[in-house]
């Protein structure tokens, strides 16, 4: 029932979003694009924006800290994304069993994901404290002398990865709902065919939750490139730039040294990287993601 009155009403209802798109997304994108080819320190007025062509990008490709921040972010993403997925799937499998008290367990496992990142950071600064932190005290029971964690360049990034594992509640929820969508008959059929529990997991569960894995992989990669608060609060990129995440470097360039053009160029490189990774995952998805016939087309 498309008529002009109804059409107008439709436009009116989406108007707030459309205005927002222009003012807070497309406009700024255009501005940022121009800025990435400019030199500007923001302190002097907008009139002093100076067009410098590809200079920012050239400088970035000779910038050691840029490569360091890429390295940190890639290591984090390559280790943490698969690690968190595996841990989350295993926990979701456990939480999917029908046992008494499961509600309480679910509550406990999900809880860390609602705690503000700043609070989590504060908590773990203390946990990682080499002298009186609970982690090294626990290790000491086993006769292990723990490292200085956040103060040791070779452990700091690892410490953040370990900490992140504590907060995978969101991912667990998504896997759990994926698991609950697997039809019981499939397991029964597989069992009748003599498949053991590992076999059932590999040939029923994994294909059935592959769309969920796919979704979480993309979110994980994007998350790695946007990692900020914990790195800012806990290590501020140190020691020796060992936790200089890409987003933190970008922040420093924009809001500490006020190199707005340079930082804008960094943000477009970030966008390109995220886009490339997402496209790789999407492109490859036809090979390993199984879609049940029931998804709606619109």
């Amino acid at each position, binding site marked *: 029932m498309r008529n002009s009155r109804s059409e107008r009403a439709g436009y009116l209802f989406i108007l707030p*979003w459309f205005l927002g798109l222009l003012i807070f997304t497309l406009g700024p994108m255009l501005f940022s694009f121009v800025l990435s080819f400019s030199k500007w320190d923001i302190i002097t007025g907008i009139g002093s924006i100076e067009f410098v062509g590809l200079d920012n990008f050239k400088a970035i490709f000779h910038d050691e800290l840029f490569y360091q921040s890429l390295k940190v972010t890639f290591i984090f993403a390559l280790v943490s994304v698969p690690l968190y997925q595996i841990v989350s799937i295993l926990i979701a499998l456990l939480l999917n069993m029908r046992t008494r008290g499961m509600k309480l*367990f679910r*509550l406990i496992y999900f809880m860390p994901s609602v705690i*503000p990142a700043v609070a989590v950071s504060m908590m773990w600064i203390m946990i990682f404290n080499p002298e*009186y932190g609970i982690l090294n005290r626990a290790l000491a029971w086993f006769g292990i002398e723990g490292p200085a964690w956040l103060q040791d360049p070779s452990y700091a990034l690892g410490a953040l990865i370990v900490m992140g594992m504590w907060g995978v509640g969101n991912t667990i929820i998504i896997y759990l709902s*994926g698991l609950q969508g697997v039809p019981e008959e499939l397991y029964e059929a597989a069992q009748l065919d003599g498949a053991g529990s590992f076999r059932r997991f590999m040939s029923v569960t994994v294909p059935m939750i592959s769309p969920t894995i796919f979704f979480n992989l993309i979110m994980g990669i994007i998350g790695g490139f946007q990692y900020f608060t914990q790195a800012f609060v806990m290590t501020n990129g140190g020691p020796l730039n060992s936790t200089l995440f890409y987003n933190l470097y970008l922040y420093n360039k924009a809001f500490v040294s006020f190199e707005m053009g340079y930082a804008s160029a960094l943000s477009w490189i970030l966008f390109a990287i995220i886009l490339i990774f997402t496209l790789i995952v999407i492109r490859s998805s036809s090979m390993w993601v199984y879609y049940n016939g029931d998804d709606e087309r619109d």
Partner: protein
Amino acid sequence: MIMNHHKWSLGRLLTFLLLIVGAAIVLVPLLWTVSTSLKSPAEVFQDSFFPKEWHWDNYKNAVTAIPFFLFLKNTLIILIPVMIGTVFSSALCAYGFARFSFKGKRFLFLVLLATMMLPGQVTMIPMFIIFKEAGWIDTFLPLIIPSFFGGGAFNIFLIRQFMRGIPKDLDEAAFMDGASRWSIFTRIMLPLSKPPLIAVSIFTFMGVWNDFQGPLIYLNSTTKYTLALGLSMFKGMYNVEWNMLMAATVLIMLPAIIVFFFLQKYFIEGISLSSAMKG
């Protein structure tokens, strides 16, 4: 049958044990934080898990050492309008996308989905410059105003998916009876869309309560700080008095945990729905 039953119990026992170990890993850091927040300064450095004496006054000292209630007030000044703006404007746009057909709708909806992929960093710098030119730096406006313009692509998507599931007969019947589109929206669609609206409210609450980078960029004076930003400054300001720092940490965690406890059903449904956008 009996064999089967036995196998099950063994499996269950193992599951149960694993779950308990995992739950301990989750809970011990939290308990330790709470226990540290109740210790005396000297005891923080000792090897005891629980405090010998419970120093509740740490909390009293913490809320005065950092201006806790001022930061809370600032957080609420941002939170309340953002929640109203987000929920209302995302529902409005969701209704537009769910129930009307207009030229370019498919394309606009694709654009909406595409904006979810855009990292906030790309717009962060130009937005800062725009707000600076508008004289809004060190005010709450940059953190509030954008929420009134659509309330976020993901939220629109979430509510729109739900609204499409509401039988069309309901609003069509009302339309035949002469109800305006607006009253169909406020009297029929909004009340029926409670689950996604609550989910969006919770996400918005969590988002504002947790937001760190936004306040860090836009707020300069300490008197304008939000709780999340204030807590991080606390670490730098006082040569770390751990017990008080942990007391402040607990105070910031608590509202998020309480909201989660009471509204967990909606919270979990909302997160589950988020992965349904894979198609």
